[in-house]
């Protein structure tokens, strides 16, 4: 009996709190969340937006007078620079196709192919490292193995009697550079295409078989059409990856191969060809090519993700 008044009071106090509506988060947590992503925005602004704007402005400015000009862009249409773009596009296309095919086959083997789990783990770990292994160390690694006096070259020559360089191969040529690029291209393909291959449902294959399809019919009518957007997307990524490569080519060929990135380097910091305005215009051209590649990639990825939504 004595408890009754106390329980009444408690009830009254409980009613006093608005329990039927969820309480809004305190405002202080909102600005803390924004504070968390501030370094990202700062980084993006300082190292992407600002340099891009600087490039764009520089590309339209005369080197000596500082006045607006289209001369830098007109300068792109010289045979040497057009050839640089053409070589860069060719090497990017070749390594995107080669790396894409090689990477796809490897990713297929460790996902759909049903190899032991440790092979998959090993390949993905290696790919994670190799996809980011470019520049001087990569060039040196290839010179040490496939250069004129490289280990593999010497081994093939002395033990098997096969002289690669007599057969027309040169590490310092278009195909030599393409071969070197494959070292970071195929791992990137492995990393980007493995999730797509994992996304292929076992039931799709079984449903196709159950409906009378052969393995070939399943791949041509179901699996490859589903995988085509991510495959093409990944290849465009590979194309862009190769298109922007600089240090590996410079270290390996010393500028003998006329790539856009090497031409930009010589225009911006060169002693003889110093023309920053042209360099900026070249870089803007690259940004345009890369942006187009990325736009195609995102469009294809969105299409694939829409399909795979269940």
């Amino acid at each position, binding site marked *: 009996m004595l408890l009754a008044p106390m329980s009444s009071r408690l009830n009254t106090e409980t009613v006093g709190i608005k329990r039927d509506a969820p309480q809004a988060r305190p405002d202080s947590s909102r600005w803390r969340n924004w504070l968390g992503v501030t370094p990202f925005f700062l980084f993006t602004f300082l190292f992407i937006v600002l340099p891009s704007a600087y490039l764009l402005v520089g590309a339209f400015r005369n080197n000596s007078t500082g006045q607006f000009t289209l001369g830098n862009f007109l300068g792109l249409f010289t045979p040497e620079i057009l050839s640089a773009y053409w070589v860069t596009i060719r090497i990017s296309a070749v390594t995107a196709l080669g790396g894409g095919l090689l990477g796809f086959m490897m990713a297929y083997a460790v996902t759909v192919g049903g190899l032991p789990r440790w092979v998959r783990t090993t390949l993905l770990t290696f790919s994670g490292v190799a996809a980011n292994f470019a520049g001087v160390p990569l060039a040196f690694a290839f010179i040490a193995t496939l250069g004129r006096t490289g280990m593999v070259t010497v081994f093939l020559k002395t033990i098997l009697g096969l002289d690669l360089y007599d057969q027309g191969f040169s590490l310092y040529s278009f195909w030599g550079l393409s071969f070197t690029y494959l070292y970071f291209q195929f791992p990137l393909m492995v990393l980007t295409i493995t999730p797509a291959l994992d996304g292929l449902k076992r039931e799709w294959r079984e449903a*196709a078989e*159950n*409906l009378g399809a052969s393995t070939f019919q399943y791949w041509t009518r179901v699996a490859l059409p589903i995988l085509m957007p991510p495959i093409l997307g990944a290849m465009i990524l590979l194309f862009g990856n190769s298109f922007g490569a600089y240090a590996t080519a410079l270290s390996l060929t010393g500028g003998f191969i006329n790539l856009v990135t090497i031409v930009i380097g010589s225009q911006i910091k060169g002693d003889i060809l110093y023309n920053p305005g042209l360099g900026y215009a070249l870089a803007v051209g690259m940004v345009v090519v890369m942006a187009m590649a990325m736009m195609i990639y995102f469009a294809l990825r969105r299409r694939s993700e*829409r399909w795979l939504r269940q």
Partner: protein
Amino acid sequence: MSFLTLANISKTFGATVAVADFNLNIEKGEFVSFLGPSGCGKTTTLRMIAGFEMPSTGIITLDDMDITYQPPNQRNVGMVFQAYALFPNMTVAQNIGFGLQVRKTPPAEIQKRVEEMLALIHLEEFASRYPYQMSGGQQQRVALARALAIQPRVLLLDEPLSALDAKIRVELRLEIRRIQQTLGITTVYVTHDQEEALSLSDRVVVMSRGHMEQVGTPYEIYNYPTTEFVASFVGQLNLLPIANLDRTARSCTLAGQPVHFEHSTDRPISDTPRLAIRPEEFWLGDGQGRNLLRGRVETLIFLGAIIRVRVDIGDGVLISADLFNARSLNLPRVGDEVLVSFPVHACWLI
């Protein structure tokens, strides 16, 4: 000879026995369900019929032909998967026509068949939609139409309704049965949902730990379960400890209160027999049958059409009684003393 026969089928994965000594004859046009909990081997058995798994031992024959080792794409067996498995890059019409297309059927014939199938599942206006633009229930109908388009000899359904919400499940269940009866197609249906199995099937195969527990019509399975597993898995069951068992007089005591039961000799009894009674066999009051128990209401659980009353009859023994939620029902309150009666034929020993 039966249309589909599974003789001495077993399947092992390493040391794990997924299916053991499975024997079943299915007649043409029959609807048979494999019912059991997860891991009981029902899907593995279905996959062996489809050809996705090879039996470790035994033979599967379909229409007098040994199909045990025949590849899945040569069996002409239609299958509907739990997760629909529609091809996401194809429209509804393309999905339905896929099986005919890979068989190199003329386009005009494919179109005609697709239209027939779309009419059968009442989705004529969805022909050009992609799977992602449809609900789960619609996708599963398309999956059913796709499996039926090839005019399979047997239709296999692997828990086709388990990914759907309750209302759609009931609707589609009726739809599946209607289509099966319209086409007269031999069907094997896998489910862990007893209501699905009982409402759809001509016969039910109850499975547990890779073994067949019982095969029978839904009525037989529910009313005359032959094992404790079947009795407890299919429907609700009170399994109550007894004392003073007199097999001759068919009587015993339950929490010190006398009970009479019927016992059929074809039902095996365990070494420590217990009394089995379905909750719906109880009656509140003394108006039903010969057995009468006295107890106190412990809980009342409202289940919509049914109200489950749990009654403590002493010695810590609780019984569950299901009462129809009629407006005239005079419900006791928790703590009330009540009499619970049930007929002699309603209980049996396990």
